[in-house]
């Protein structure tokens, strides 16, 4: 009897990459977006080092100066350096963008999870309210909230503007998170947790919330882009950030329109800044979705 040789099988255990590395390798475009976001955050944080001039200093000797070595992006109708105002404007855009989307997404996630978990009549009432909010165009809802709340500036940021931009996101997040949470609620481990006598809040926060983290994070990033766009629109209408605070949308309104021909740089560069920021967050958000959970529809 011939001895049968047992073929040796070599397993190659896939090396576990660090999640950040994995994201960069799998989603190069997303990594590019992240890079731009990080660069913007750094520029905003160290605006006083990056910007060559003070964004508020008026210079009546140098009005509407075209781009040059001294003023890389020119000056505006008050002689303020456009480049410096864009750098400082990143502060406004990112602060409003992050804070309002954190506010809107978190509130939406809480409502969505609660709605799914309690179900029944609670769910029905919450969903009807969300329906009402969803039938307003975002900008109309934001404008209404701005008008109702007025201004309330804390630490140089208009808290009410953040609320106005965050509120329209709530129903959308609540919808998506609710549908994820509904699926999770039916899983056996929730029954097990309930059978073990855990309280509602423990089940919600320890068992359901961690499992809806993916849609929450994805929506959060996507809404930063929307928030930046919305803030720019509101400021452009004169109902968002107000002078003299540097903000991209504000730089496009007012005087910029009157100087179409003499000073096109006044309207070109702030718009490029808005587009680049929104582009970066969209790119990152899209890739994050593909990476974490491609089935989620925004």
């Amino acid at each position: 009897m011939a001895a049968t040789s047992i073929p040796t099988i070599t397993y190659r255990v896939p090396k576990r990459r660090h999640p950040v590395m994995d994201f960069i390798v799998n989603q190069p475009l997303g990594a590019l977006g992240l890079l731009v976001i990080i660069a913007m955050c750094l520029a905003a944080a160290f605006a006083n080092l990056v910007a060559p001039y003070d964004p508020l200093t008026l210079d009546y000797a140098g009005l509407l100066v075209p781009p040059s070595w001294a003023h890389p992006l020119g000056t505006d109708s008050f002689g303020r350096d456009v480049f410096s105002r864009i750098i400082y404007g990143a502060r406004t855009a990112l602060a409003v963008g992050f804070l309002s989307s954190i506010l809107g997404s978190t509130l939406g996630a809480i409502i969505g999870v609660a709605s799914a978990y309690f179900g029944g009549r609670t769910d029905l009432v919450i969903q009807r309210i969300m329906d009402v909010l969803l039938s307003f165009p975002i900008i109309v809802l934001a404008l209404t909230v701005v008008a109702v709340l007025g201004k309330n500036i804390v630490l140089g940021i208009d808290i009410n503007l953040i609320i106005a931009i965050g509120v329209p996101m709530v129903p959308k997040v609540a919808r998506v998170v609710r549908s994820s949470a509904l699926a999770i609620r039916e899983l056996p481990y929730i029954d097990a947790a309930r059978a073990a006598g855990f309280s509602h809040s423990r089940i919600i926060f320890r068992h359901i919330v961690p499992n809806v983290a993916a849609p929450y994070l994805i929506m959060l990033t996507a809404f930063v882009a929307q928030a930046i766009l919305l803030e720019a629109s509101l400021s452009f209408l004169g109902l968002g950030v107000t002078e003299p605070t540097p903000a991209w949308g504000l730089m496009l309104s007012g005087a910029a329109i009157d100087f179409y021909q003499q000073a096109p740089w006044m309207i070109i560069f702030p718009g490029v800044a808005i587009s680049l920021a929104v582009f970066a967050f969209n790119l990152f958000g899209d890739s994050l979705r593909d990476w974490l959970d491609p089935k989620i529809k925004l």
Partner: protein
Amino acid sequence: MIPTLLGVAILVFFLLRVMPGDIVEVMLLGEGGAVPQNVIEAERVRLGLDQPIYVQFFKWLAGVVQGDFGYSMWTGKPVAYEIGIRFELSLQVAVMATILAVLIALPLGTISAIFKDTWIDYTVRIVSIAGLAIPSFWLGMIIILLLITLFSWHPPLTFTPLFENPAANLAQLIWPALAVGYRYSAVATRMTRSSILEVLQEDYIRTARAKGVFERLVVTRHAMRNAMLPVVTVIGLEFAFLIGGLVVTEQVFNLNGIGKLFVQAMTRGDYTLVQALVLLVATFFIVVNFLIDLLYAALDPRIRYR
């Protein structure tokens, strides 16, 4: 449908009354002049603002149900008139933007899906991601800037109805439609692309190819038709919100439309006008949603509503 609209009506009515400073103050004290208290009170009585809020609400609601939206508190003209004279313009821009978007999105999205991961696909995707990022009001400014510098020509500022003088009408309105339509087409292109990619995985596509159907027919007959449902949804929903989206763009092109009216009414505290406009947009949204559901059944016979 009706409960949602009622919710919108209640929300908007009471939100506006929470607003600090009513229209009387904006109107009479706007220029910083001192106006005797009794004049202010008389004006409030005239506008019915002295009554308890719930009385105001039910009076207004009773009118709305009968199709009477009241009078603009600022101009004194009927709300229906104020909206009516501006509606045509906004609707036309919205419709033109939709046509542009559909004309661009369907072919581009399909081509991008067929040539997935080639340079054609990448170009289309970059163009459409850029469309989502570029604010339409800024694109509008750039369009005006280009028209001025390249052709030393500015779009006409006064509105001519389409059927009076189509050339003058289009010369004014095609630009805002383009500015709004770019973003719109970007949304629709992305949806078309992903929807077609999904459908191309289906078994019936493989069957069609296996039985020797021309690839062109596979795409147009088998893939595109089945991929249209989500695309129609996106186009419909975006159209419903387009009227709202025009708020900023109308400002750039100095168009006297619904969007501009809304901003004016909001800053003046013209309650009746804002209420009517919000209700109008919400109704529009809900009706479009309903129509999409109906269209679903027409496009896909498998869907039946009971």
